[in-house]
């Protein structure tokens, strides 16, 4: 096999180098923004575009690879992580992204997400969460709200929704983050951090489906309220939020609570300080669980830890076996130790 190789990153790729076919999502869909920001940050990684692969499952998010001028594989419902895992096993040098949705990743493909994350497969899973099945025209998804009226739940959903980031943390993803489709700078920042992380990466993008679940996240993402209702996490910084930066998150015993800075003698020193690199996931779990309207919705990188990736461990075992046993020769393999000769 002639190994396709590229020695150096080509000079100055731009956003346009990553634009392929014209997207065919509904006008006004949040996916356009995610696509545009992804294309924008791609040149920053310095990876030749032939070494980048986007793999998707089924749903509106599944069309994403067709619009990226990289290698792309639009697979079947929920199974993109499996194909990505196999590709990464065969070709560790590739940068592999998985684009998925709340139904694709957490319903039909739930098992695959768990195991790709726990094995620390070096893939970047970006899950578009619009809390609805869009491409099948509006059924309840695993993140739809209790009581939500959809085509399949005309008098309200009776199913308790999943917290996607808690799933990612429970599965030991080494990078867990959340961002919002309309928050352009923030998507770029999170996608960039995701792209540079080595290991299993899970990014939830809160995305609006203006056709079947319009305004799903509006209560806390609208421009007028978002500063007061979302907590922008920054590593090493106290958890301050609010238009006037006068609110913060503090632990009261084991429970998080909102406090006003400056009231009752409270200062930033009383607040939780975000440590995305903490091996102990306790605070990360809390951040993944809290949500509006009880508490602000955390966005940004919740967890980012370093551990050997699946492909590194596979390669290490092969190296060790070769060191211990010598490079395998076919003649020895076929002959084995239990042969006899007939003359």
């Amino acid at each position, binding site marked *: 096999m002639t190994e396709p190789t590229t020695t150096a990153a080509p000079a100055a790729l731009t956003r346009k180098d990553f634009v392929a076919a014209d997207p065919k999502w509904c006008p006004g869909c949040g996916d356009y923004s995610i696509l545009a920001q992804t294309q924008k940050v791609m040149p920053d990684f310095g990876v030749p575009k032939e070494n980048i692969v986007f793999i998707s499952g089924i749903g509106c998010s599944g069309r994403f690879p067709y619009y990226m001028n990289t290698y792309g594989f639009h697979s079947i419902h929920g199974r993109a992580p499996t194909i990505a895992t196999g590709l990464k096993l065969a070709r560790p040098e590739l940068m592999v992204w998985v684009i998925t949705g709340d139904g694709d990743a957490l319903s039909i493909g739930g098992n695959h997400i768990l195991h790709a994350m726990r094995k620390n497969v070096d893939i970047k899973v970006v899950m578009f969460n619009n809390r609805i099945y869009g491409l099948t025209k509006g059924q309840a998804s695993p993140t739809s709200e209790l009581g939500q009226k959809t085509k399949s739940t005309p008098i309200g959903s009776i199913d308790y929704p999943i917290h996607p980031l808690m799933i990612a943390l429970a599965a030991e993803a080494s990078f867990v983050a959340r961002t919002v489709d309309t928050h352009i700078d923030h998507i770029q920042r999170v996608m960039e951090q995701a792209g540079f992380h080595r290991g299993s990466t899970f990014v939830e993008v809160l995305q609006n489906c203006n056709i079947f679940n319009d305004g799903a996240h509006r209560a806390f993402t609208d421009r007028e309220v978002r500063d007061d209702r979302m907590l922008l996490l920054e590593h090493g910084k106290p958890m301050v939020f609010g238009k006037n930066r006068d609110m913060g998150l503090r632990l009261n015993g084991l429970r998080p609570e909102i406090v006003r800075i400056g009231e009752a003698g409270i200062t930033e020193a009383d607040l939780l300080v975000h440590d995305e690199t903490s091996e102990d996931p306790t605070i990360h779990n809390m951040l993944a669980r809290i949500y509006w309207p009880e508490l602000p919705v955390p966005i940004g990188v919740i967890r980012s830890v370093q551990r050997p990736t699946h492909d590194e461990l*596979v390669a290490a*075992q092969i190296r060790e076996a070769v060191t211990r046993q010598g490079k395998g020769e076919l003649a020895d393999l076929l002959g084995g130790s239990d042969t006899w000769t*007939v003359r």
Partner: protein
Amino acid sequence: MTTTKGHEVAVQELDRVTIRFAGDSGDGMQLTGTQFTRTAAVFGNDISTLPDYPAEIRAPAGSLGGVSGFQISFSSGEIHTPGDAPDVLVAMNPAALAANAREVVPGGAIIVNSDAFTPANLAKAGYAANPLTDGSLSACSVFEIPISTLNAGALEGLDMTAKQMDLTKNFFALGVMFWLYERSMEPTLAWIEEKFGRRPVVAEANRRALQAGYAFGETTEIFHTRYVVPAAHLAPGTYRNLTGNEGTALGFVVAARLADRPLVYASYPITPASDILHQLSTYKHHGVKTFQAEDEIAAIGAALGASYGGALGATGTSGPGMALKAEMLGLAVMVELPLVVVNVQRGGPSTGLPTKTEQADLLQAVFGRNGEAPVAVVAPASPAECFAMAIEAWRIALKYMTPVVYLTDAFLANGTEPWRVPDLASLPDLRVPDRDPAAAFYPYQRDETTLARPWVVPGTPGHEHRIGGLEKLDVLGTVSYDADNHHRMTLLRAEKIARIAADIPPLEVFGPSEGDLLVLGWGSTYGAIRSAVERFQARGRRVAHAHLRHLHPFPPNTGDVLRSYGTVLVPEINLGQLRTIVRSEFLVDAVGFNLVRGKPFAIGEIEAKAEQLLGDL
């Protein structure tokens, strides 16, 4: 030929002997059988074996459900099956006797561990009276040996509990059999040293048990005859004993080397396919990458992902797992990537008979997907043939850019026979020719002969493109919902698979090229059919045997062969799946012979069915 040796023991030469070892699933019967097999193989006999073990790892001791058996047939002539019925049964307890005694040939021998014939064990086996004393075994010679007691005596003084000592009684029985068939203990003694060398007490216990059994044979007065089965006249070469699963694993490693690409084998644990994963996971120093996936779907997904990246992506499973892989197999058809899916068939439907053999997944392999989703299907006929057919599966997958379903079954997977180690230079070159990097690239531009699309993998500069499960425009490979294009692509996918027929060996006929009866088979029924047909031919009957290794597409002469005989008989361990296909494809009024019992056909059964058909002519 009978000669007298010593005072009382005569030596008799036999052409072929079939022995069945049977005991509790914890009694080590598989190991005992394997050791006898290795010894017979190294001696130079032709051999064929059939392990038969229960689905439960350790069913209650002494129960019928927990009986594990291992049958070996060894011969001085060429043999194709592990024998219809045992000449000798070694039964370690009443349940093993109850489960197997009926099958011993009249006049055969039964050796029992008489220590195990307690009232409690007899009751567990369902015996109202002791079969050793009630005359019910009078058709056979019964040899009662207090194996447990004698073995414990031989191990006296070793630092072991009585229970641990009793675990070695299978080697006492093996020692007795080695004496009875004049076999050397050396291969097994060497094995004990290799296996237990680091645990000296265990090694010593097994050595003593084996030697005590052999010595018992020498000193006891219950045996009056020893038996010799001379070496067979196998073609010159280096041989080893191979199970079908081992052959498949080795074939995959060699195929990857012949293709000059890495092998990625992804699998989920399932009986009886798991041994392929186990074996390949020990080949890391050959660069083999194995992946134990979270489920059957992930396994085939990872294999397809590896193929997408330019490796040889393979997965293996058994019936229920195959059902789960169907959707991904359809995707592989759509994206036209090479992929080999092993299905080690077992009794179905559903969980069925997980450890028993069956051939009932043929229609699933050929047709079992949504849409028009043709794949190539191949099936080896014997354990040793698994090696060559694994390479053949890869030859087709790589040349035609297609998934290939490779069908074995529990009998092939676990059965063994001698395999002649091939000369590496005789194996096909599987390298995919490099594309001219300057030539224009279109994802679905096809090779004129094979109709294969180009295998351009991620990392190739300038050829970034998208593939997927949605229908693609002919040549260009962009998404297309065009009606005529879908029809054209459907025909192209079918035609690509159909063209493989011109690239495979013709269906060979064993026997007269025309005649009264053709017995047509596929897969593991080969041995029984061939042996039955040999018997007819020896009697001058116009009976032939043809065995399909390529099930989709068929060899191009298949129809001509079928039409050259008065009657076509198709024995299958299903309700007539190959028969259904050949009847529809060739309009031949083939007759089925179908027994679905979780075990291979006996030679005599096929012979009787063929005799009945010939009588009706």
